[in-house]
């Protein structure tokens, strides 16, 4: 409460304090009683419930809550979400299996195993070409229960093969399910792309790919993929296997041959996941 009459003891600062210190009592004039402002009848009536007014007013305010599962607030455009392995415009993978991301990872969440691209025709036992250049990432696993989404892998990637999406809904029931494999991380085929393995665009080398000289698959590549699919389908039919007709799950009409190659590339998803779980952690004794 503001005191209208100035305190004499405070005005003459030093002597007053000395007096206080010596214990002498100073006769101070009684400050004039300030008249309390008279409140109206209505104010008196509603004073006890005035606090509810805040609650009442708040009812008509805009709700600040994000109604999460129904309407999701968009993340920042550069939010660090789930990773994605990108492709060149003709469908070849950008990852060259250099393992720089795995080395950069502070949490040891990434496992990469490279392999050589093989231009030998598939009929002669070739394993196929998955990326332009010499090597490709045969095995690519990210353990999302180790990954701290720092983005150092993205900075380390020399070919921009690894980037991050804004997707963040990844909760799951088992640890093995949260180790994402290459087929889960690979970007879906954009319209016009043909799935690897297939040869590079004729007359180009890998530098042309990085310069952006390749804008899409050529008819020769498309024919190659068609032949490979047909061959794989024939082989599947002759062996009576039906599993090659499984839906790839990314909406694209991915051919049977692609599955066959992928299955040889990464056998036993769960076993591999379990292994990397074993290598990545859980060594508590």
């Amino acid at each position, binding site marked *: 409460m503001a005191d209208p009459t100035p305190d004499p003891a405070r005005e003459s600062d030093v002597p007053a304090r000395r007096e206080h210190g010596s214990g002498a009592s100073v006769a101070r004039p009684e400050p004039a009683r300030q008249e309390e402002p008279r409140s109206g009848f209505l104010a008196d009536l509603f004073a006890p419930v005035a606090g509810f007014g805040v609650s009442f007013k708040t009812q008509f305010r805009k709700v600040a*809550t994000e109604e999460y*599962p129904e309407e999701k607030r968009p993340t920042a455009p550069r939010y660090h979400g789930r990773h994605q392995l990108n492709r060149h415009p003709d469908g070849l993978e950008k990852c060259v299996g250099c393992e720089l991301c795995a080395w950069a990872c502070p949490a040891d969440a990434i496992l990469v195993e490279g392999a050589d691209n093989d231009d030998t025709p598939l009929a002669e036992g070739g394993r196929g070409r998955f990326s332009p250049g010499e090597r490709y990432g045969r095995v690519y696993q990210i353990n999302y*229960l*180790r990954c701290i*989404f720092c983005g150092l892998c993205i900075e380390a990637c020399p070919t921009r093969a690894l980037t991050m999406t804004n997707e963040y809904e990844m*909760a799951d029931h088992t640890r093995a399910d949260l180790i994402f494999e290459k087929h889960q991380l690979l970007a879906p085929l954009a319209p016009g792309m043909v799935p690897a393995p297939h040869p590079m665009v004729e007359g180009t080398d890998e530098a042309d790919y990085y310069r952006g000289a390749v804008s899409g698959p050529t008819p020769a590549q498309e024919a190659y993929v068609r032949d490979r699919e047909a061959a794989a389908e024939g082989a599947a039919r002759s062996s009576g296997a039906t599993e090659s007709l499984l839906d790839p799950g990314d909406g694209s009409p991915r051919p049977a041959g692609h599955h066959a190659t992928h299955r040889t590339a990464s056998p036993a998803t769960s076993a*591999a996941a379990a292994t990397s779980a*074993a290598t990545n952690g*859980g060594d508590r004794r």
Partner: protein
Amino acid sequence: MGIEEKLPSGVMTAKVSTVAGHLLKTSMWPATFGLACCAIEMMAVGTPDYDIARFGMERFAATPRQADLMIVAGRVSQKMAPVVRQVYDQMPEPKWVLSMGVCASSGGMFNNYAIVQGVDHIVPVDVYLPGCPPRPQMLLNAILTLHEQITREPHIGDRRKIAQAVERAAMEATPTHAMKGLLA
């Protein structure tokens, strides 16, 4: 036990179990239990901005005896491990565990002697949530994942027997560190 024994097998139990699941999931109280930085995001979920009360979690129970859900938010140190287990043991059945963030789920980037490499070494975990720390929406998503699980689970039966069976299965399961397989 009740009316479900007088009806053809499966008919009533399935319905009752589904109803029980819906009741359980819509009034689940989490234990107040933060271990590290993830706890800050967990608190953020309690604010009006995200409003965990929309999912029936009106408040964080101040004692494990009133809680149904343990959100392990943060790294579990070896020294804290017995305490975490005690909190879990004090919670009444039915109870669920949500491992929030990478440190609780697997040790995260702290692969060292001081940190338990995954809280599933000491308590059975229902939902793992990646992120360092997970954003509040991720926690809400994990809670919804848990809700789905609760609706699917059977809820009719002897709680003690169910708990014992779950514990036995957890003891017999291959521990994560012993899982061996082809390296890709």
